[in-house]
């Protein structure tokens, strides 16, 4: 196999200078040949394993890796869907009704999720004030094999949710993520939106799914700008 | 990382010309000079697969007390940061080692002979060996300080010539100066040169950077060199290998440097192109 030194350095996860020096010093089974470097793939990967190094030769068609960070709030919201007039008199029954709407999961998973949400609510309420609650499980779901999503549920009537400011809750964002990292990321973004009073007022108008997503996209643009700076 | 040019300072008028030339090169290229003021007449350069002992003539050691101030003065005049090279390792007590992680090195046409001999027509054997083993291009300065405002690449089709051409593109990009390519068509046809360009995927750059491709088809090689502008930095590859050697400018390096007095930037066979 013949590669350039840059490709070799990349596939061994080593600095370029180190690889070049090791080849010169004869510490690595790679030979210089003209402008490229030749090696036997099997021998090199054996060598790498013996020296606690990782070797993954560059793929012909590099798979595009999905970075969980790239997941935006809007796409998570879109994936979760927006639902209106969720029935229920107290926290538990409302959650139960809300979970039923999540069409991404099968019934078994729904039941499990419901139990988890209840456990989390027993710890402290996820009602973060201003009539908004963000129910989520304490830990990411095990055997989670899905992209993160947020299901938006506007309630039929506000309910007591033991929220921080004791205001009754009229909207729930059920947040489900496969990893803690994406969970925190989405949660902080959502919290940023809710901190804005005008957004809460906007929510109180029970906006349509499209309008909600548009609004959220606006907020995200602001956030992205701040991040990029 | 900033490019570094290695310069061995000779504290006499001739050395001043060379240093001025290096400073000019650095300013054009945005490189920073590293100046070595020798304390011994010899030093070793350890390359990848060769060690070269450079024996300087004694004029390099003359008046050591003024050397630093002279060099500093010239560098500051040029508006460049002053950095002197202090050898850290010694092979023997009077034999310092000089590492070779530089991006360019400036050499007079010969560094181990008396300056009176230095004129045209002769590249010292040490300079030749440096060119041969170095991973960096070697700037062979003109006998007197000479500014340049264009670039001329000699392209003869060998791997080194291709490297020289790429270096020419890079310098043209960094300095914004026009680039001319010169080819002396010997026994082989012009098409084979174009084929080399195509094989190396250089067609686009060729069209973009090159001002004019001068082709010499007849006449004696040296006579054609009159066409090379006297204010050009001449870039060429040295020492083609094997078969290609026959129709390469590489073997013509000596002819070129003995005929024209321009500044030469020579790319050796071990040159590693850095982007």
């Amino acid at each position, binding site marked *: 196999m013949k590669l350039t030194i840059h490709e070799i350095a990349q596939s061994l996860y*080593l*600095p370029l*200078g*180190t690889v070049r*020096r*090791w*080849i*010169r*010093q*004869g*510490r*690595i089974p790679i*030979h*210089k*040949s003209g402008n490229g470097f*030749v090696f*036997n793939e099997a*021998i090199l990967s054996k060598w790498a394993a*013996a*020296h*606690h*190094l990782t070797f993954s030769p560059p793929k012909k068609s590099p798979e595009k890796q999905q970075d969980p960070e790239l997941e935006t709030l809007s796409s998570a919201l879109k994936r979760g869907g927006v639902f209106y007039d969720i029935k229920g008199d107290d926290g538990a029954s409302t959650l139960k009704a809300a979970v039923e709407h999540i069409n991404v999961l099968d019934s078994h998973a729904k039941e499990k999720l419901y139990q988890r949400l209840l456990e989390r609510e027993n710890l402290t309420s996820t009602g973060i004030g201003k009539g908004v609650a963000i129910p989520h499980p304490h830990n990411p779901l095990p055997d989670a094999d899905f992209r993160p999503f947020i299901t938006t549920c506007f309630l039929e009537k506000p309910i007591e949710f033991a929220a921080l400011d004791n205001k009754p809750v009229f909207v729930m964002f059920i947040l489900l993520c496969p990893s803690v990292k994406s969970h925190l990321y989405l949660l902080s973004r959502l919290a940023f939106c809710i901190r804005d009073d005008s957004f809460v007022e906007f929510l109180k108008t029970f906006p349509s799914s499209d309008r909600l997503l548009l609004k959220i996209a606006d907020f995200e643009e602001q956030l992205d700008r*701040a*991040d990029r*700076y | *990382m*900033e490019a570094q040019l290695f310069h061995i300072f000779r504290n006499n008028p001739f050395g001043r010309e060379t240093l001025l030339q290096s400073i000019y090169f650095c300013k054009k290229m945005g490189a*920073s000079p590293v100046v070595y003021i020798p304390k011994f*007449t*010899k030093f*070793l350069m*350890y390359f990848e*697969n*060769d*060690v070269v*002992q450079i*024996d300087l003539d004694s004029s390099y050691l003359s008046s050591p007390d003024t050397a630093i101030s002279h060099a500093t003065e010239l560098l500051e005049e040029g508006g460049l*940061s002053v*950095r002197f090279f202090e050898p*850290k*390792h*010694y*092979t*023997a*007590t*009077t*034999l310092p*080692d000089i*590492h070779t*992680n530089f991006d360019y090195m400036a050499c007079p046409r010969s560094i181990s002979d008396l300056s009176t001999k230095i004129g045209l027509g002769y590249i010292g054997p040490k300079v030749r060996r440096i060119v041969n083993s170095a991973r960096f291009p070697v700037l062979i300065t003109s006998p007197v300080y000479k500014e340049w405002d264009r670039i001329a690449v000699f392209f003869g089709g060998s791997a080194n010539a291709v490297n020289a051409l790429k270096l020419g593109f890079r310098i043209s990009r960094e300095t914004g100066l026009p680039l001319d390519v010169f080819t002396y068509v010997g026994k082989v046809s012009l098409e084979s040169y174009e084929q080399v360009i195509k094989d190396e995927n250089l067609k686009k750059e060729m069209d973009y950077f090159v001002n004019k491709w001068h082709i010499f088809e007849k006449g004696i090689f040296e006579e054609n060199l009159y066409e090379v502008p006297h204010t050009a930095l001449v870039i060429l590859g040295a020492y083609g*290998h*094997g*078969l290609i050697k026959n129709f390469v400018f590489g073997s013509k390096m000596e002819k070129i440097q003995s005929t024209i007095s321009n500044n030469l930037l020579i790319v050796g066979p071990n040159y590693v192109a850095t982007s």
Partner: protein
Amino acid sequence: MRIFKSWRYPASWKFFRLDDRLLLMLMAVIVGLCSGLAALALNRSLIAMFNWLHKYHHIWWAFVLPGIGAALSSLFLEKVVVEGAGHGVPEVIYSVSRYGGLLRFRSSYSRLISSCLTIGSGGSAGPEAPVVMSGAAIGSNIAKYFSLNDRQRVTLVGCGAAGAISSIFNAPIAGMVFSIEVILGEWKSVNIVPIAIAAVAGTEISRILQGNQIVFSHLQFNIDLLDIFACLGLAILTAVASIVLTRMLRSMYGISHKISAPIWVRAAVGGCAVGIIGLFLPVVLGEGYHAVQAMIGGTFSQGLALVAIATLAKVVATALTLGWGGSGGIFAPCLVIGSLAGLTYHHCLILLWPSISWVNEGCFALLGMAGLISGMLQAPLTGIFLIVEITGGYEVILPLIIVSAISTSLCHYIEPASFYLKELVERGHLLRPGTDARVLSDLNVREIIEEDCITVKQNMLLRDFINIIKISPRNYFPVEDEKTNNFLGIIHLDDIRAYLFNPDMYDAVVLGQIMDTKVDVVHPDDDLSEVLRKMDAHQLFSMPVVSNNKFLGLISKATILDQYRKELVVQTSQ
């Protein structure tokens, strides 16, 4: 044409690419033969020169001969081949440890000629170190010609040294052990096999051309228990002699360098002084193998006083020759001084306990040699095997081991670095494979620099900076000047944590006010050991790398550890 070209790149042949051991063995034969021939050439020319000058030795001005020889040899080294003086072994070890054994081509013959001039004319020095230098340079240049890599080149340098020693002493094991113990300092089968082959090749070429003769033949020895006890005393005596020789060499070197005369004048003065000593005690002249032969054979019939004086005289003569600019090694003088010391000791024993029947004096001469070689080189194995092989006397092995071991440890106690290594140790250049110093010297700042730091401008508000902190993977933020992009200082998150949570400060503070400007910086060309020393001294975990006032990146201890470990694993396995 292609085939013609590729024969210079055997390492890229498919046959050798899988495993270079075969290639190395093949090369080892070539290198062993070449360096063996070089050693023989020196040996032959020494004999020729000795015979040629022999007829002048009775003339009264014969004492200037060593002076002329030494002056010529230093002129040759200084002006013709432009190499430094010295015997060259430290240079070989240095190059092996730092530059993969790259040696100049001229080294492969320069020392041969210069030492031939010094020794042939009567200077007290040995031909072994020059031969080792030549052999090593031959190995290195053969490796260079075939474009081998550093590891292979180092092995061939060892092969060259082994071939040379094997050939000059007709002693394959000694050559092998010397090369591994002194030159390479690493016992690995990848090295040992080719070096053994080179030693065999070197020995064989010498046997073909010179005949299989043992250098110093000897009588049968019957060693009693009492003799073994007596060895303890001899070991101490040889240790003292080694230390005296080492100190004397150094002080002579110091004295001669205080004199501001041209180098060849110094050499001439030293040589003439040796010549004058030689007028009275001819045993000090030359490499002295005849004298050693006589002493082992028991035919060196001199009294105690004379032998003791001869011992000292040889020490002084060696110091005069080598310290004042002559060219040659320490090996042969060690053998002579050792056997003289052994003889002295034997005479003392007889004087003190005349009734006991001590073993033959030749045996003590032999043990003395081993003691001195081990003491000077601090290489006990080399001492033991060399003496066993050059005398063919396996029966002395027990006292030999005792004397070598004690002499080595005593010398090590007083002079921690051996004669060959002292210069390197003093400069901090002794980098044996697999050691901390070696790993650090191979790594450099450019390899461990982390370039994912986000740089900020000095007039940025703290408010804007907060947003940068959010996305930065690091806790360090280099601050640059707006216009020149020069590095001004660095902000460490730990230092500004207090203001971070105080929104009132957000618009009140610019980064230029809170950055740390008194930071230690690293230059990309700095040695890593130096960088680590700085870090330890100031209890730092990260340092910015700055060149020409521009920030290049950060180096941190975590990355150093990571790379250090990889480097160590790669360097020590094989």
